[in-house]
């Protein structure tokens, strides 16, 4: 398949689904740990707020699931420690 024939569109086309993700209350979402593969609800993660940012950790293995900072009017988000998120949009 050629690079120009791979049915690719730009990110604007994902605006709708991204808006569903980022406008949701995700405390009831299920997150799967990228380290131990255990799943947990976001509300049950071990969360550390007393620092330059917020750190969500796996209740089973303590691995970091999410790192979030608020830098002026911008939120920085690192989800690289998690394998997947299941977010209810209904």
């Amino acid at each position, binding site marked *: 398949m050629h690079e120009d024939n791979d049915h690719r569109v730009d990110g604007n086309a994902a605006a709708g689904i991204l808006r569903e993700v980022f406008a949701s209350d995700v405390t009831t979402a299920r997150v799967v740990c990228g380290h131990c593969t255990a799943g947990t609800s976001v509300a049950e993660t071990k969360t550390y707020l007393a620092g330059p940012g917020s750190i969500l950790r796996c209740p089973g293995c303590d691995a*970091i699931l999410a790192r979030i900072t608020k830098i002026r009017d911008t939120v920085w988000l690192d989800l690289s420690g998690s394998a997947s998120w299941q977010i209810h949009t209904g």
Partner: protein
Amino acid sequence: MSVISRGFGGRGDNDDARIPPGQHETYDFPVLSAGPTPAVSREEWGLDVTDLDGAVTRWGWPDLMRAPSEEFTVDIHCVTTWSKLDTSWRGVRVRDVLGDLATEAEYALVRCYGGYTTNLPIGDLVDRDAWIAYEYEGDDLESAHGGPARLLVPHLYLWKSAKWINGIELHLDDEPGFWETLGYHEYGDPWLEQRYVGD
């Protein structure tokens, strides 16, 4: 040896001049953690100094105790806007830990028990006041504050003074650490209010 790292007289009239912009003075010692407090005994504690070529020199607790130590009193400044004046510590100067290793390297990536990292220019570790601290106010450094041993670099925001230090990697290039990869300033001078990237 006692080092008093401040340019003003005792506490009192000039305290305001010792508080960097955007900071306020606190009298307790807030504990800020990104994770569970690592339980590391002095017996199992180690500090791996990794040279540019990957060679590792391991400092154990007895090595740290044999090195020349200092008592020092410094002001510390946390990016979450609190500053604490006249904190007293005992520790070994980082330049005495790095020895000849730091001559070619430009940057250090500091590693910790629990996985935390932070980056600093080597010059700030060897040419400025910087210690591996293991006593606070005359007592063994509590684990909540970074014991058995933490980095202390009082001229930078406190996130650079990594708790539970267990490694110093020497590098030619700057490699951002735990908070530096999420929008915090690569250097973090409180007097220039370098809190965030671009400040």
